[in-house]
């Protein structure tokens, strides 16, 4: 008994043939789902958020009233505290980035150039290890360490020094701790990519260590530093939990969160444009250094 193969006439069959004949259509259909996701879920929610910045708000019920207004932007521009908070946040983000760079460079250099392959593996694990723990757990752990009766108190007590407690110094410390791995890894990757021959050539031409570092290593690593700084800068810019837990300092994120809690969604959305504009400007600057190729 023979069963004739199903004639190539079913809809699935026809569709398959269509795809086979049009490879571009195939590609488009494959990309459609992720692109739709990006557009709707990601950019769509951003669009809804910013659309709310143009609406009014009922101060008693906290509900959004759908009447067009620019009052929210006027309030953001005209209230001094938002300027203060913006400058403070950007200043802190820059400071965290600088401290991270200074700390990350020697670590990344050791990993890429000095350590033996075995040690290098261990160092990479050591740098990655904190990323396996929850962000909240790490911040709470720091809070406990910084407060009195914590491990820092115990450590420094013999020297007559108290734990630093919570405050702006603690905030800088915790941010640096949190984002340091994001700076080390791109610098490490950039350093590793520099061929040994370039350094030797520089030495052959009479370049001393300092000269080689400034004229050869630094320009080649700079995109890596900028790539790392995108993380340290943007993560500091957007954080609102760490400042709440280890300091009394208010950053933009806290202003947005507090305003959202009023609840005043339109004003919160208007304030949220500040970090978005800041980070877009920063990314445009970063792109000019070729940092995106080092990510």
């Amino acid at each position: 008994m023979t069963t004739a193969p199903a004639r190539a006439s079913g809809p699935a069959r026809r569709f398959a043939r269509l795809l086979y004949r049009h490879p571009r259509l195939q590609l488009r259909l494959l990309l459609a789902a992720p692109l739709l996701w990006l557009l709707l879920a990601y950019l769509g929610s951003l669009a809804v958020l910013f659309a709310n910045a143009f609406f009014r708000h009922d101060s008693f019920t906290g509900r959004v009233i759908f009447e067009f207004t620019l009052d929210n932007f006027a309030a953001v521009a005209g209230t001094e505290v938002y300027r203060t908070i913006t400058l403070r946040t950007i200043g802190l983000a820059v400071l965290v980035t600088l401290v991270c760079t200074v700390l990350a460079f020697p670590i990344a250099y050791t990993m890429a150039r000095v350590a033996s392959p075995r040690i290098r593996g261990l160092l990479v694990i050591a740098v990655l290890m904190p990323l396996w723990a929850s962000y909240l757990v790490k911040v709470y752990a720091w809070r406990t360490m910084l407060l009195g009766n914590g491990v820092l108190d115990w450590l420094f007590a013999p020297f007559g020094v108290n734990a630093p407690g919570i405050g702006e110094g603690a905030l800088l410390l915790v941010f640096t701790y949190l984002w340091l791995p994001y700076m080390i890894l791109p610098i490490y990757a950039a350093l590793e990519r520099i061929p040994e021959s370039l350094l030797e050539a520089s030495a052959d031409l009479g370049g001393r260590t300092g000269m080689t570092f400034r004229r050869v290593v630094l320009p080649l690593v700079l995109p890596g530093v900028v790539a790392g700084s995108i993380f340290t800068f943007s993560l500091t810019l957007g954080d609102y939990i760490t400042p709440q837990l280890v300091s009394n300092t208010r950053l933009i994120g806290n202003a947005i969160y507090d305003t959202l809690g009023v609840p005043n969604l339109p004003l919160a959305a208007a304030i949220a444009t500040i970090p978005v504009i800041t980070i877009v400007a920063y990314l445009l600057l970063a792109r000019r250094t070729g940092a995106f190729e080092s990510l």
Partner: protein
Amino acid sequence: MRTPRLPAAIAGMALVLAACQGGAASPSHSAQASLGDGEGALNLVIWTGYAERGENDPAYDWVTPFEDETGCMVKTQDGTDSANMVQLMQTGEYDGVSASGDATLRLIAGGEVAPINTDLIPNYANIFDGLKLQPHNSVDGVPYGVPHGRGANVLLYNTDEFAEAPTSWDVVWESDSPAAGKISVYNSAIYIADAALYLMKHNSDLNITNPYELDQTQFDAAVELLQQQNEMIGEYWATAAAQIESFAAGDMVAGTSWQYQANNLTDSPVAATLPEEGSTGWSDTWMISSRAAHPNCMYKWMDWIASPEANAQATVWFGEAPTSQAACDAAEEISPGHCEAFHATDESYFDNIWYWTTPQKECGDDRGAVCKDFTEWTTAWQEITGS
């Protein structure tokens, strides 16, 4: 492939329109008529400690018996302050909330909560008359919830630092305070009322008659006092857990608090007191969401929390006054003298306590509409804490 700009823009606009429609809730003005079977689940917005299941202390568990009896599995979300609770209720994802007086009227006006049918809540009848149909939990004689308990915001202090209990709030306000740098106060705009209350007692020139009804001059004075305090602040606490931790560590030695924190700091040299100026306080109400997905379970919960045993446990655990004589009797067995200590039946005590309420433009007296509303309070609060 070129980016399809137009379709993206259309999709964005469609989403915005969808969001607009989702935002408009129709206020529900009719209470549920009858009670069916439980829906098997209950999502609540609560104040910390309002729904214990024995995880902190096995002796205090009024959620597990409720689940066993009704089959409604309880999930809770702590609100940090009343404004936060209003925001959470606006999401429509919760069945009910333990709202304080500065949230209740906002929730009613926004159509977030529905009136209740007290016939479906047998334990409602036992509740003290003084707590029923109050301005903060009813509209035109229609009840909007079941009272949970009431109490005062207390002064928490370190007993090593203060040999005797401070008798005045001046330890958190005056710039010569021995606690300067180690002061811990509530991170919420409603805390401006605490400054106004202090001024009401110490600066009669301002003629403050109600700490929630502040005109420009009075408001400016309160903000100035808060700015002076800002220099001495160790921490603006947002969660009870954070304040408990910093008092236990000794980093904070004085501040405004709830009895709950003191109850959880019995191992530390920390005590709570009510200073002579009186204090701000709260009277909390369980309200049902107008969009509750589990309304029958919420009704069962409101009845449960008004029952003598559950109300006694809940109010002893948090440290506040129970809502019925039967609950007082039950509380006597867990914590003797509880109702006297928290003045459950002493209305004159609560004359000195200013319940949280929402500041509005209309002062509520012959000054007219010259008072600072809640939006102005929150802006001022951001300026005090943010600059």
